[in-house]
């Protein structure tokens, strides 16, 4: 690391105004003994009766965090929709700053990351998932990236914020320029780009090689099979798994494809859901209504969901972000497979693709009403609210566009959200009553 870069980092941290708490967390995150103690704590949780799938998820992140913070493996920062089989396949560990922002929010760390970001002139009108990611990166609460890989589709903030993180850490930056239209030629173009990025990563980042690609693909496919089983089980009425919990594990869904832990996680989750259905001990015992949930959730507070699930006995039956949208990967044509996976994202391309998926979710999961959590600053998803509302109205499904912020509490009026959700539930109940009559 050059002297100049050290100075820049110090200057940025000074401007960002790091607290003693941040300094302690930064230092601890890079200590071997802290990660060893974390393993012991997880074992203890397991012995105390933690649910196997929850333990798997914690182990999955603990394993990746250890590898990345202690620099046991090259850490590659990626944007949310880059297929991370590529990173695991090259023998690296992925890190998604925007997804990690959700973590930070749930542990009460987002405030400092957001403040750090804003003190560096980032506008508060930008999506807080990205702002918190940049802030955490500047405060070096995240690991140090060996390279950054982003895809150009879906979200402008994701790619730009990661570009700036790559400049801050002075590491190679790669962009997959995803074509808008799905055709043989565009797939081919994207596959060639992925291949080039993989080759360049192997060259530029010591410790990466494509030797693990087949293994990562096998892990991903195995996890996918279990996941499809889980989706099938979630069509059950009442719902065998809490939607609020599923929204927490969206982070895993975005992050860990290609990791062996994900296979174990979904296998245990399938067992859990089967067991719930067999025993009839459903999380929302007296399920009255079933909601479809679009976009993410507020990660700093569980109140919205406890209100829905416990007070109103409303299940979130399925989430848009949990929708499995790609086919099995073929390790014999790895880059083409990954290109197909990227292009299959229903959020990309004309909006009709997203509408079709939402329509299918409504049908398959017997949804009574749809809520879109309108994340502040998310132009990608919020821009479709009027169309979604009209589309669902034509299908006879009520729709609520619920303004809020997943990470930044300051942009969220929780009381107002509760009032709006309450009114929406009342509307759904009265519709149900009318139908019965």
């Amino acid at each position, binding site marked *: 690391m050059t002297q100049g870069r050290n100075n820049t980092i110090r200057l940025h941290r000074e401007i960002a105004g790091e607290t003693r708490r941040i300094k302690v967390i930064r230092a601890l995150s890079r200590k071997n003994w802290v990660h060893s103690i974390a393993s012991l704590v997880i074992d203890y949780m397991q012995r105390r009766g933690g649910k196997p799938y929850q333990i798997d998820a914690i182990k999955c992140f603990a394993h990746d965090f250890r590898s990345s913070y202690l620099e046991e493996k090259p850490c590659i920062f990626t944007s949310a929709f880059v297929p991370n089989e590529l990173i695991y396949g090259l023998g690296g560990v992925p890190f998604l700053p925007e997804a990690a922002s959700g973590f930070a929010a749930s542990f009460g760390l987002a405030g400092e990351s957001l403040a750090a970001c804003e003190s560096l002139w980032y*506008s508060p*009108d930008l999506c807080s998932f990205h702002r918190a990611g940049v802030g955490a990166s500047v405060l070096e609460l995240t690991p140090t990236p060996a390279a950054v890989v982003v895809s*150009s589709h879906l979200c402008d903030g994701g790619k*730009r914020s990661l570009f*700036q993180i790559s400049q801050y850490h002075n590491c190679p930056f790669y*962009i997959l320029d995803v074509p*808008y239209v799905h055709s043989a030629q565009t797939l081919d173009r994207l596959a060639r*780009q992925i291949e080039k990025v993989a080759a360049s990563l192997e060259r530029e980042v010591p410790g990466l090689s494509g030797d693990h690609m087949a293994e990562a693909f096998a892990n991903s496919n195995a996890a996918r099979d279990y996941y499809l089983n889980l989706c099938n089980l979630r069509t059950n009425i009442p719902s065998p798994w809490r939607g609020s919990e599923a929204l927490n594990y969206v982070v895993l869904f975005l992050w860990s494809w290609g990791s062996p832990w994900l296979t174990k996680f979904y296998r245990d989750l399938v067992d859990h859901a089967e067991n719930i259905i067999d025993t009839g001990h459903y999380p929302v015992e007296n399920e009255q209504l079933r909601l479809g949930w679009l976009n993410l959730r507020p990660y700093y507070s569980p109140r919205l969901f406890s209100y829905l699930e416990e007070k109103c006995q409303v299940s979130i039956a399925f989430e848009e972000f949990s929708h499995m949208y790609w086919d099995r990967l073929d390790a014999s044509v790895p880059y083409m497979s990954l290109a197909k996976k990227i292009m299959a994202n229903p959020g990309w391309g004309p909006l009709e693709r997203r509408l079709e998926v939402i329509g299918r979710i409504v049908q398959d999961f017997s949804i009574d009403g749809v809520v879109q959590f309108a994340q502040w600053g998310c132009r990608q998803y919020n*821009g479709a609210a009027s169309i979604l509302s009209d589309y669902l109205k034509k299908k006879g499904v009520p729709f609520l566009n619920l303004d809020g912020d997943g990470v930044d509490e300051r942009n969220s009026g929780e009381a107002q959200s509760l009032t709006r959700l309450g009114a929406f539930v009342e509307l759904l109940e009265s519709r149900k009553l009318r139908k019965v009559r």
Partner: protein
Amino acid sequence: MVYLSCSYIPHEIPLTAGMHVKRGIFEGPLPAMEGYLPRDFCPYARAFLRQYGDDHVVVIAESCDAMRRVYDALRYWSLAGAVHFVDVPRTHDAEAVSFYAEELRNFASNLMDSNAPLPADFCENLKSAIGCMNRIRIGLAKVFDLLSERQVSAVTATRLAMSINQLVADFSTSQDCADLEPRQPRSKHVFAPSIIETIVRKAEELIDKTLSEAHPLHPIGNRIPVGVTGTCLLDLSLLHCIESAGLDVVFIDSCLPSRTYAFTVDNESTSDPFYALAKAYLRKPPCPRMFRDDERIHYLHGLTSDCDARGLIYFAPKFCDQAYYDFLEVKHGLKSPGRLPVLLLEGQYGVGRTGQALTRIAAFREMLESRQIVRAGTSK
């Protein structure tokens, strides 16, 4: 009429298809359209959403998340006769250029409403349309060069660019062109070289008139030179405001005018005009949406050095994510080479008519003046 949403979509293609074409420039979002997009969307995207005529074609580029939603809304609510999408790559390597050339070819086919191959003479006609647009671009570049010499005001130059945009669109309704030949009907699918030639001649006349009227605006040294940059300069009000605050705008780096005109298409080195267009448009002065390493910073640094700008005013349309991120790169990027002060101004349409903007620009001018005094003192 074909409305283009982005400076990366060539005028040349609709012109060759025999269609009226203009870059969509509006006075702001329409109240009647408020419900279609959320209020926390950039004003340009919201302004683009309106009820167009049944014979109007709207062309949206893959500029940003907001414009993709505009594309969806225009189609879903049937707000225009036809809506086309042009997938502009974010990189500009050889592969991206080839891809974009193909995309432009598809765009031309879509405009011609035909699944059949393009007419045999389309490429030849396209080449002559490129030649005509090059003449307009070269002429306008000469006018904008005079900004740095402070012989033409930024408002005058930008207004000229907007007049030419309108002239290309529909010369028969332009007052400046009232003396043109009898209105000739321009039906779709008919390339009319004589009409294009007439438009270019008229545009050149306007340019020549502006060039001939150029004269030193102020005694040298009286006013501080600044540059203006950003994603999209929504209207002329900001330039008015800067000039009335006592600063001279010596360059404008914005979607309109400079990024639309500050380049030419090399028609000679390839036989494929689509490839020539793709190459020139992707490699023109970079827009904040592109990923071209430090090129944009180098470009801006070059502009500030060449034009001797002492400060930079960055205009970000409210809720424009590209601008918010780009501003940071510009601010930090220009800090190291010359410590150029950068002022961020956010706003909607008519931002320059607000007292807040004027106050901030005046304060910026005072800061630049004090720096100048300090610098003069140090050099003594």
